């Protein structure tokens, strides 16, 4: 384990941090990140990459597999030692909290970008692949494909997310649009066609019918009927790609979007108006990912190969938080296991 030093400069001055004594956090922040600058295959890993847990003191501590291409993480809510990772090598599985790992998939699956566990059927894990999707129904022991209804081409899948209110209901973001299954991937149907890749899909923690989807060229999409129909948000630019979207679990009116070109955009009125929140970020504000702490509403932004930044005033000001030189593929907020 290697501790990555974080920067505390300005921490005490943050308005949010200075507010009333916070309740004990109910989530851990895990980052899927690469820290090795300009890494190419064959070069030595000069710093640990993969999974980083943000400790109470603000430090990012690496755990588990040292691997530069860890894209997302899913954890079994019944047993947090059981974790699933989408990585360049396929799906990695640990059953001992990250001490040992097994590449769960074989040669015929590569470069999954997302992995998601159904909270209502936690032995079912979805693995979004560049050529479709695999679904494990036995807690990661086998990974058969489940692509009936997906097109032969156009099924490049960047993201798959489960409806937390209904087991087996999953929305998948593909090159050709958003697809829906309501039977745990036994069949899929196209519900919103696009010409370029859907980059992220999220379900509101406040309203299970409300979903957002970021896209490469269709801007930010919203669905208010559980993903059945989608419209484009005005106020969010769409000429260039949006990379991901986040809901604020502490405030139903607040969302944030990341973009290489546009940096961070936020809304605090449920999407009616959007504001650029790049002041205080590095000048080129190349934002690869945003995340919002579900306990505090703290906004995180990962600036490509620069650092993770945090904001306790929802983007009005930013403080460098750590993981300098990193590419953050995902912010994962893991609920603490029930005691």
């Amino acid at each position, binding site marked *: 384990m290697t501790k990555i030093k974080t920067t505390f400069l300005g921490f005490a001055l943050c308005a949010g941090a200075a507010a009333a004594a916070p309740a004990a956090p109910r989530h851990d922040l895990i980052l899927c990140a690469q820290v090795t600058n300009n890494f*190419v*295959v*064959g*070069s*030595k890993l000069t710093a640990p990459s993969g999974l980083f847990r943000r400790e109470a003191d603000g430090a990012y501590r690496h755990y588990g597999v040292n691997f530069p*291409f860890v894209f997302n993480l899913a954890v079994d809510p019944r047993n947090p030692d059981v974790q699933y990772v989408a990585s360049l090598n396929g799906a990695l599985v640990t059953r001992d909290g990250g001490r040992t790992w097994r590449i769960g998939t074989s040669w015929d699956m590569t470069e999954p970008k997302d992995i998601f566990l159904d909270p209502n059927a936690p032995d079912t894990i979805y693995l979004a692949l560049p050529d479709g999707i695999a679904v494990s129904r036995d807690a990661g022991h086998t990974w058969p494909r489940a692509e009936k209804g997906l097109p032969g081409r156009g099924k490049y899948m960047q993201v798959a997310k489960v409806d937390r209110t209904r087991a087996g209901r999953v929305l998948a973001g593909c090159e050709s649009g958003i697809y829906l299954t309501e039977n745990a991937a036994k069949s899929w149907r196209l519900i919103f066609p696009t010409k370029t890749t859907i980059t992220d899909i999220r379900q509101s923690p406040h309203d299970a019918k409300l979903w957002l989807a970021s896209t490469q060229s269709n801007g930010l999409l919203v669905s208010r009927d559980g993903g059945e129909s989608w419209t484009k948000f005005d106020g969010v630019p769409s000429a260039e*790609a949006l990379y991901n979207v986040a809901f604020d679990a502490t405030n139903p009116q607040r969302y944030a979007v990341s973009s290489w070109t546009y940096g961070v955009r936020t809304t605090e009125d449920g999407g009616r108006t959007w504001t650029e929140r790049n002041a205080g970020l590095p000048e080129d504000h190349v934002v690869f990912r945003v995340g919002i702490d579900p306990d505090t509403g703290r906004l995180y932004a990962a600036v490509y190969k620069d650092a993770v930044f945090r904001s306790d005033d929802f983007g009005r000001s930013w403080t460098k938080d750590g993981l300098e030189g990193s590419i953050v593929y995902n912010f994962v907020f893991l609920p603490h296991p029930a005691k």
Partner: protein
Amino acid sequence: MKARILSLLSLGAILAVSLRAQPAFSGPMPSPAVVADAGLRRAAYFDRIDEVLKWRAGLPVGAGELLKDTAIIASKLARHEDADLCSRSIIELMKEPGSGPFWMFPAVDIAYLGRGQLSAEAEKAIRDAWRSAMQIRGDTENHWAMYYTSLYLMAQLYPDDPADSWYTGKSSQENMAEAREYLISWMDLATTVGQGEFNPTHYIGEYAIPMLFLSTWSKDPGMRQRGQMMLDWLFADLAENTLNGVLHGANARTDDTSVIERWNALASFFSWILFDNTVPPQSYGGWGVYFATVAKNYEVPEVIYRVAVDRGADYVQHDLKRTRRRWRNSDVLSAPVYKTNYTRRDYAVGSYQGGMADPIQTHVWDVTWAVPDPRGVHNTMFSMHPISSSFDMQTYFTELPDQMIKGVTKEGKASYDSPDKLLGGSRFEQVFQNLDTIIALYDIPPGTRFPHINGFFSKDLVNLTVDPSGWIFAQGGRAYLAYRPLAGYELQPLARIKSSWTGERADTGDKRLYSPHLKNGTIVQAASADEFKDFAAFQAAIRALPLEFGLEPVPTVKFTSLRGRKIVCTYGKAPVLDGKKVDYSKWKLFEGPYLNADKGSRKLTITHGRLERVLDFNTLAISDRVKPE
């Protein structure tokens, strides 16, 4: 960006070492005479191997110092030298294992070569590294060939080890089964619908070395045979596409140096060591050392040797290949590549139909002329559209759109986002070749990054003449060349990329034909100096050739070639040759005087004169015969 990129870091270190004692690199060109005696050929092959190993094993090491890299260790182990020093060095090196296929195959090399030489502690150090360090599989075919061959062989060394003793979390038997399945799948693809990274100037090593290891060390006779057969397949394809040992275009992948100095590539190491028909590049191309450590276990078949060195007549070969895997933006996972190679004594013309075989390093067509000594010579001519596009990157890579162009320029592909680059294919280029005539048409949409054409005019051309007719005439070696731009242009000095990693440039005297017109085209007609009384006669013959062309609404050319063939090319349509539409769908996997295979057959027939070798992957049989007169 990420795993897609060839790691040349270790290679860079190797190239930086002393040039001393590389006699073949600095010595005279080998004799072009065919060596008929198999024993003499074999002995000379062994001598070349020994030259490589002696040089690499003999690089100076400070007194009391450990060896710093696996190449010198492998060379010493191959020569049965300094086993104790090798053991101690390995123990140190394995404390920080590398992270992917470029580390894995050298590790396998020293593990196998070290049997009976290394200490138990050194063997354990290697073994432990395969438990503790998660290896990156990468995302290209060459990565996977190295990765799975290495995993297969390493697991074979410890066949009964449990899952928790491997970074994969899988047992030795599971690792071997997965690796075997992938390797057979890849061989099936290559032998039915064509190789993906075909005719690569450098990546040939990333295939040949693993296949040599497989053919040498696999205990499974079937896998051993497959390794041997794939080696023959690769080397036969290399032999067919070389001109005096120099691999010419088209290439699925090359680099900024090799695309103009065609000899300066790892492929030339293989021509040298296998066929002795050129000189090796500096430091034997770096990776060549690993091939040499095991090369005595490969015997160059005479028929392949003859294809490389004994050319009685001009020949045309048509090959079927395939593009790199397309994740997005395409109706097919891998598109067919229809490749033409016309080779004569004085020059070779090679091409495929255009488009991208690879998103960054494709080289679609060129005329490459023969030279007495290729070192430092830019013996080639071509044009291309220097596209730089995140759309294209996303077609082939599983990445978000924006970081790719910025990232790739820092990962050994410095020229990618440069408007004067000479490396790369384009979706907006369509090429047709008949014998020594090339017609390349371009229809570039407005708004495309780098909306112009680059043509390469070598410093080594002589008699460069811009003719009032619109043709540009030049002579390269004994090849007469006529180049017809279809739109306005200017010839500019070209500072070529000297380092693919740093982007450092050097002025070499080459010129770039810069043509800033979206609808565009190039016609090139080559001929041998032997065919004409003098250069003026060639020019007169070219001027007399019937030529009509237009650029609107799309580029179109009607041209009667020097060979009397009537060619009609219209961008977006199938070419028409002598009134008949060219039907690529009927192309075989290989068709020509030397290599023949039906699509889907898994069976290659290599022929030279009366010699014939058949590689049959259906039965895993190699059969040789001397055909009756």
